[in-house]
């Protein structure tokens, strides 16, 4: 059953990043499956208005006030008139918000429920519980997710985190991982020369299976922030360089920790062993990765870690910290886990370097295995199932695995009936919505209820000021039939004809 879906997030291209590419890839695959998808984001510098991307993916860059790190100012109601207009003219049925720091997404979910639409939220990140900023964010998340139909998390760790933060019923949270476009992350072919985009002088690094006495290259591609564990990296590199004279490092990325890294290189005189590439574009990631043998990922927190999948797809052995959702991502033979502390990282990376140099790790089949494990088509299929579930196409038992009221013994029965007063789907009655919000807290619950009531009144006023009859309904992009996975080649051909 084809749906019309609006993906709403503050984060979208031209800004690069994981959430951005997730939204784009998921949308294109959903379009391939016969749905209609639009993306609503805020206007970026030099990009305001409505644009079409490949395949008829329509992007609304709504002019909006941006405060910090591309996040819009939380005004709760000011986005409603524009949002309503877009939803009506595109005849959207499901609103899918992304990223918990995106104010646009939370507002859209609130308004969508007021307008009587199904909503899904995808969480891409992990948060703490202790510091002031997290407490505030978590309260807002709880507000936004009180009345959402379904939540998708990128890993089981992320699910656990989100369920705790927003006090959700775990049944209404699904785990759908990210994926990679494996074709873009191929290992180096036998006769392919190494692309050296920035430093042509470092051509001595061979991609071939390291024989004894040859160098082992370790790649780190990460934004250089504190939470990416750059401090651990700074501590580990001198020790690794001292212990393994044949080890080399390539570090790509930029951020506030770049200075510290450079100081470390200067202090230890490692200029010929550690290469800093600075910021690189996403297309160049593969070219950098294939220059190395081991990918080191010292992150302190990570919901999924798409980059380690990309590294494994490029045929790199992965050494990473055992934090967040990372242990769920790759099978054991591709990875080596370390505790997020200096000594253990040095020990694990060291043993990986030694094993790699001795030729004990075979990475030839990594690409093929990753390709089988992660594909966006699969992600889109599973997301579609979530849409089916919340739209009531799938029965409650089929979707949730159990029916309300006859829950497994031992679980707290009845508590979720207020939250999810469903007969298969959550209903839209204002009183039921208010009940869901009221449980958010002693004061917060009442405040949220006021917000919801104001939102509802605003909706009624808008119906009067901008009547539905005056809003033009857009024509759909010429749709193609839903494609089976079998005729992949046919699909590619068809895609080309649509683009031209």
């Amino acid at each position, binding site marked *: 059953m084809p749906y019309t879906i609006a993906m709403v997030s503050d984060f979208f291209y031209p800004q690069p990043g994981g959430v951005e590419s997730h939204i784009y890839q998921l949308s294109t695959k959903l379009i391939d499956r016969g749905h209609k998808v639009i993306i609503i984001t805020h206007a970026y510098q030099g990009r305001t208005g409505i644009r079409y991307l490949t395949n008829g993916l329509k992007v609304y860059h709504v002019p909006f006030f941006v405060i910090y790190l591309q996040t819009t100012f939380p005004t709760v109601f000011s986005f409603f008139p524009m949002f309503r207009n877009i939803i009506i003219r595109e005849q959207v049925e499901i609103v899918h918000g992304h990223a918990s720091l995106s104010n646009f997404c939370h507002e859209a979910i609130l308004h969508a429920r007021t307008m009587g639409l199904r909503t899904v939220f995808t969480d891409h990140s992990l948060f703490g519980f202790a510091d002031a900023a997290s407490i505030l964010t978590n309260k807002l998340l709880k507000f936004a997710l009180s009345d959402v139909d379904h939540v998708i998390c990128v890993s089981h760790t992320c699910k656990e985190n989100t369920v705790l933060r927003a006090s959700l019923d775990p049944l209404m949270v699904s785990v759908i991982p990210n994926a990679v476009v494996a074709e873009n992350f191929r290992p180096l072919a036998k006769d392919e020369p190494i692309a050296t985009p920035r430093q042509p002088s470092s051509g001595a690094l061979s991609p071939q299976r390291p024989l004894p006495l040859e160098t082992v290259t370790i790649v780190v591609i990460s934004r250089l922030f504190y939470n990416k564990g750059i401090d651990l990296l700074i501590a580990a590199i001198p020790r690794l360089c001292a212990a393994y004279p044949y080890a080399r490092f390539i570090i790509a990325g930029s951020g506030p920790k770049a200075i510290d890294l450079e100081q470390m290189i200067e202090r230890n005189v490692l200029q010929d062993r550690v290469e800093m590439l600075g910021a690189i574009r996403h297309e160049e990631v593969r070219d950098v990765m294939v220059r190395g043998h081991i990918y080191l990922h010292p992150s302190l927190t990570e919901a999924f870690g798409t980059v380690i999948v990309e590294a494994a797809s490029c045929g790199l052995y992965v050494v990473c910290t055992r934090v967040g959702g990372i242990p769920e991502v790759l099978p054991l033979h591709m990875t080596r886990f370390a505790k997020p502390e200096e000594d253990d990282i040095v020990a694990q990376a060291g043993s990986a370097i030694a094993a790699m140099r001795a030729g004990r790790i075979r990475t030839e089949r990594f690409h093929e295995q990753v390709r089988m494990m992660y594909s966006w088509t699969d992600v889109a299929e599973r997301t579609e199932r979530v849409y089916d579930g919340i739209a009531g196409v799938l029965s409650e038992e089929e979707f949730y695995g159990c029916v309300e009221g006859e829950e497994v013994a031992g679980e707290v029965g009845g508590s979720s009936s207020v939250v999810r007063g469903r007969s298969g789907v959550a209903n839209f009655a204002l009183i039921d919505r208010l009940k869901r919000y009221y449980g958010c807290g002693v004061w917060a619950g009442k405040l949220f209820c006021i917000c919801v009531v104001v939102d509802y009144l605003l909706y009624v006023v808008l119906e009067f*000021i901008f009547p539905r009859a005056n809003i033009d309904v857009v024509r759909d992009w010429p749709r193609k039939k839903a494609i089976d996975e079998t005729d992949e080649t046919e699909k590619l051909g068809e895609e080309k004809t649509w683009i031209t």
Partner: protein
Amino acid sequence: MPAPICTLRKLEPTPTTVSFTVSTRAPIETLQARLIHYGFLAVRFLLVAQVLLVLWTKWDSTMVHSNQATIPQWLSDTPTGQWAAMLANAAAVRYLVPICVFSMWILVRREYTEESLLVLRGLGVETTTSSSTYLSTATTRFIPTTSIQDIFIHEAFKGFEVRFYLAIVVEDEEDVVVVFPVRTPAYSPEIKLTRTRLYCRDE
């Protein structure tokens, strides 16, 4: 206040010409509607004249140094003239003038907008936008076929809405010409685009 619904009219006087008119007022077709329309115009004109007369009378009465009235006797003797004099005597200048200006503004204001696009095959297009008052004429612009680079329909954010617009890209001009700038037709005008293309260029 709900926005008025606009209507689109198409006129084809000759096989090579076509004009599209978008208007926010209801089309005048029947004799009755026509009579009402002209009747209202006449009333409007008379009211404007009355307001002017009131102002004139006030001018006469306040100019103390000239004993001679500038209004001709025949006009001030009519019931209209007497009524104007009564009004002028009753109110002070500082109330009368703003009230008169305001009522003038109400009276000469055109409460509908009418925009049209005239397409002459092989020659070009002419866009017309009606003025906001009855005192000035409509603004028109002719764009010859030779300087038209492209015609397209796209969407844009305007106020709290997303609207369709028909735009013409003119050679050597930085901005595109938006054809129906004030009101866009209440349905997606794709069909019109093809027609416009057909009429404008011999494709």
